[in-house]
């Protein structure tokens, strides 16, 4: 018995050692390796952990963009290859991934990271190495001055929050605002902007409460909201919690309270989870399947054909980010610095999430769409 244990332990160690060697070899040659017939772009996204669902969507968006380019013959006859790394949604892990991707000189630019904290942790390393990172999901204001090589295809919370506040206060005439937000960098950033902007327009924030991500019972915060008697509830969070809040609000006696949000709740999962309760929710978004843009419609069709499901908003942002990078490689050549200069000067790039230009900080400039859930569907509306 004892010897069996020893043999097993030895076998396990051997297996580990072999896998270490097996993995070390390509990594070692990758650094110095020539580009050959392939052009590499990186992808840093959470493939495991709490944000894995969005991370996977991002991976699918990038893979789709690359597949389309390769099907058309690649760039200058070379095929594009994606090197995907998992950042687990953890800033410490994101720094490791950044070191790995930046070290491999055959990687020309990358899409990533998703969480703002991860983008901020990776940014110093990417900027130091001089490689472009385009984030498909980091909307925190702090990313604005993260560095010359840091771009994003999603607008800041400030842009969307400002737009939402104007729509909510000026046009819909809501004066007493309730804000619920998830207690992390994203939710808090959005709540701050929403409060600042709505108050700037003369409205009053009567209640502001945080909830935890993955919380399932919202009765406490909803009771507080009901007590304050607001005209509208602005949610700074993602679709899962929004659906639950919408469902549970009737129990708190505010079943008719209008809900507004931003693009983070744009997902079919919101309607699947929320059913009737999410009817009438208003939101801003850059991506919509009822958009008339040809690029958007082509993207939705290709995505649905490829993966058998409708794309979410982050898949679309990631698709655009990958397209912009490949456009950069096509026009500026396989050179990290040249790609950066090209993207920095990019004007009116037509993507699945609208027409994009970058400002001097690498932030994207776009006009959001207004949407409302009508009859179980996201519909673009005027008001």
């Amino acid at each position, binding site marked *: 018995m004892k010897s069996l244990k020893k043999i097993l332990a030895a076998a*396990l160690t051997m297996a580990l050692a072999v896998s270490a060697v097996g993995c070390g070899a390509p990594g070692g040659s990758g650094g110095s390796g020539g580009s050959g017939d392939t052009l590499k772009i990186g992808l840093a996204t959470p493939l495991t952990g709490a944000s894995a669902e969005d991370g996977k969507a991002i991976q699918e968006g990038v893979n789709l963009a690359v597949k389309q380019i390769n099907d058309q013959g690649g760039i200058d006859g070379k095929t594009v290859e994606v090197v995907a790394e*998992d950042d687990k949604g953890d800033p*410490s892990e994101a720094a490791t991934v950044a070191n790995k991707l930046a070290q491999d000189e055959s990687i020309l630019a990358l899409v990533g990271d998703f969480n703002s904290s991860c983008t*901020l942790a990776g940014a110093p390393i990417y900027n130091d190495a001089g490689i472009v990172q385009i984030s498909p999901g980091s909307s925190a204001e702090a990313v604005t001055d993260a560095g010359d090589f840091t771009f994003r295809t999603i607008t800041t919370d400030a842009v969307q929050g400002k737009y939402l506040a104007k729509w909510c206060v000026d046009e819909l005439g809501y004066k007493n605002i309730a804000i619920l937000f998830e*207690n992390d*960098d994203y939710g808090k950033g959005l709540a701050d902007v929403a409060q600042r902007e709505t108050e700037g327009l003369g409205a009053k924030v009567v209640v502001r409460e945080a909830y935890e991500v993955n919380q399932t019972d919202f009765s406490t915060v909803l009771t507080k909201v009901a007590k304050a008697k607001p005209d509208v509830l602005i949610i700074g969070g993602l679709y899962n919690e929004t659906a639950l809040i919408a469902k549970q609000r009737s129990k708190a006696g505010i079943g008719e309270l209008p809900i507004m949000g931003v693009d983070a709740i744009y997902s079919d999962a919101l309607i699947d989870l929320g059913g009737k309760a999410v009817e009438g929710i208003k939101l801003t978004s850059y991506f919509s399947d009822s958009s008339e843009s040809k690029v958007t419609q082509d993207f939705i069709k290709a995505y649905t054909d490829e993966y058998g499901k409708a794309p979410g908003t982050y898949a679309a942002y990631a698709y655009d980010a990958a397209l912009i990078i490949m456009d950069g490689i096509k026009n500026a050549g396989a050179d990290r610095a040249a790609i950066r200069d090209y993207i920095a000067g990019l004007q009116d790039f037509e993507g699945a999430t609208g027409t994009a230009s970058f400002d001097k900080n690498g932030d994207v400039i776009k006009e959001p769409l207004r949407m409302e859930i009508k009859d179980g569907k996201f519909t673009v509306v005027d008001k």
Partner: protein
Amino acid sequence: MQSIIIDLFQKPGQYKKVAGFILVALLAAFPYIYFNNYYLHIAILVGIFVILSLSLNLITGFTGQLCLGHAAFYGVGAYVGALLMKNLQMNFFLALIVSFLVTGLFGLLLGIPTLRLRGDYLAIVTLGFGEIVRLVFINWEEVTNGPMGLRSIPAPSIMGFVLKERYMFYYLILIMVLLVLFLMNRLINSGFGMAMQTIKADEIAAESIGIYPVKYKLIAFILSSGLAGVAGCFYASYVSYISPTTFVYNTSVTILAMVVLGGLGSLAGSVIGAAVLTLIPEVLRFISDYRMLLFGALMVLMMIFKPEGFWGVSKRVKNIYKLKAGRRHHERDIKSQ
């Protein structure tokens, strides 16, 4: 030739010294063999986790008190260090010392009420402390900048010379690890260390021979939390960005796993545990989606087949028995004493 081998066996200290010297030389040459920022980064992370697991081993492995909030001390050290360097432009090395003192103070405050009790109260209290610290990081926005975290934390500098390259951080952490190892080794083998291990073996017996457990447990806990703070301060300066999501319960468990997998109450075990548990997830990157799954499976297998860890008790005790049973020269040694 034979005499050399016998010599090595007769003086295990000699043999160990040679091996240790070779290892340190190899580690020092590492950046020249593999000049790759990614490998260096991983090596630096290993260094940080070696300090963390060594410090946790002091309280959990050597004194036998379970602590489930080590990431909180790591985080407090990181935030204290970051704030001092960022807002007061304090020198890194001074900040390192202040981080040690501040986290040590937290250790003292937590330890005073809980270490007087027997049983796993410390585990529960540190678990709660970990959560409280995380929530403070998130909600005390004026100081910690909330969930957005702190950015642009300055790199260490020695008299105007800024350590900004990765290999410089590598040498810095290497020196820190060696220093911690040296101090821990002296501590463990001192009378103080013996007292700690006696408490672990049996608290009542320890008391009966005049060892006051609370004192030793408390000092071990203060040192343990202080060292975690030092690791945190280094991390903040190295990565230059910290946010609350790094210092969560999960990290505490990872550090504890390093200690347990490496071998409770073993310095070498802590080093091996930290290295292996940092390297495996990196090595397994190529299987992307399944890597954490396989990582978990490996840990389960390890605990089934080698529950005492890589460098467990039997590894250390067995040698002594063998010497006692088989080798004559050892008996001679004993007689001559």
